[in-house]
């Protein structure tokens, strides 16, 4: 397939974009990547392809644009079906993977955002507590989903690994900023080991951003939003 047939609009700092890139890597898809400098301005193509949300990632395949990271991942899984499977094959396992990825997006990640934007100590503490609670649940979920294997998806990285693993960078930034350990060998032994395996996987390795670089970007983002208010 010609490289230009598949285009991904993204941003290096976005965990959501990372999800799409991991999926494309797993399937060995050749694609054109366009970095959006969204803090400064959004490209015409982005605004045209995602007029409602105006966000990355956007996958454009044969001129068909689509958005929402997990929807993109499922699309990639369904189209490049000859590659390794991303979603489990059993419907119940698929439902479990979808449940946990919805939990991560709807409950867990928002607490990380709450910590990031929190102004007062109390709000930040509450956010951390929520994140810790969530990690306990995810530690347990890992046990059930992995069934003794290396990843949530089994022997290979799957949907839930991608959905959660993309946040490891932001998690490290949060830990540094809060002076706390969220993922650790004592608190979350399975997730701790899984994180190492995930980060060194061939489909993921090249996409990992340096923690300090991410933290610096975070500060820029905070400064810009504060300036706008």
């Amino acid at each position, binding site marked *: 397939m010609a490289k230009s047939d598949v285009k991904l609009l993204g941003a290096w700092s976005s965990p959501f974009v990372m999800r799409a890139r991991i999926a494309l890597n797993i399937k060995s898809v050749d694609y054109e990547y366009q970095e959006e400098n969204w803090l400064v301005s959004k490209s015409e193509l982005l605004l045209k392809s995602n007029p*409602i949300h105006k966000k990355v990632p956007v996958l454009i*395949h044969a001129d*068909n644009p*689509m*958005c*929402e990271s997990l*929807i*993109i991942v*499922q*699309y990639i899984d*369904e*189209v490049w079906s000859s590659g390794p499977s991303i979603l489990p094959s059993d*419907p*119940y396992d*698929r*439902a479990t993977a*979808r*449940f946990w990825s*919805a*939990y991560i997006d709807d409950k867990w990640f928002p607490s990380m955002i709450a910590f990031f934007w929190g102004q007062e100590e109390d709000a930040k503490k509450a956010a951390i507590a929520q994140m810790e609670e969530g990690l306990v*649940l995810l530690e347990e979920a890992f046990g059930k989903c992995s069934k003794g294997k290396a990843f949530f998806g089994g022997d290979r990285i799957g949907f839930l690994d991608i959905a959660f693993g993309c946040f490891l960078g932001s998690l490290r930034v949060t830990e540094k900023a809060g002076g706390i350990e969220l993922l650790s060998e004592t608190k979350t032994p399975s997730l701790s080991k899984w994180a190492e395996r995930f980060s060194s996987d061939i489909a993921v390795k090249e996409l990992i951003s340096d923690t300090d670089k991410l933290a610096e970007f975070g500060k820029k983002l905070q400064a810009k939003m504060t300036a706008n208010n």
Partner: protein
Amino acid sequence: MAEEVLLFGVGRSPFSGRVEMALKLKGVEYKYVEEDLANKSPSLLKYNPIHKKIPVLVHNGNPIVESQVILEYIDETWPGYPLLPKDPYERAIARFWAKFIDDKCLPAIFKAFYGEEKEREQAVEELSEFLNYLENELKEKKFFGGESIGMVDIVANLIFWLEAWEEASGTELLTREKFPRLTNWTHEFVSNTIVKESLFPRDKLVAFLRNRIGGPNVSK
């Protein structure tokens, strides 16, 4: 082994309504358990310990929660009537709109129904904007799913709740002038035999909502 399908729900909940619609469209036999949200059953708490909410579908002892996750599970488990299209791109678009309805329309509806006085006006404006997107997406189709009801239509059952709230609160939002396609869609949707069976009686819903918001002539 005989198949066992249980659905824990609440009659007036659009979310358990979605699951009922899907099961009926697929022709799946199931046992319905009405939950009292003020007094949740031990079974519900056992099957959904994290969110403690309905709907919960239990298939041969295995619980599945979150209405959209359940809908996809139903589509993948029981053949026959397709809830999602076959084509991967069309599936991505359907999933996009289903997510849009729950991530954007639902919170706006909630704020419009139950929000503080000042919040409500803005919520109604936002909701209007979101409904406009849905209006445009319908294009010339009978349903979001095309000729027949699909997952997006099922998830859009919220519009039935929206209309009931309009009646209960004396607000006009989804008018034929502003939203001709959505108005037609609503008519087609509620006329469908299976949908009709799964919808909570409109007058009961209006009465319930009136009670909750105090009606058009009673200030909150």
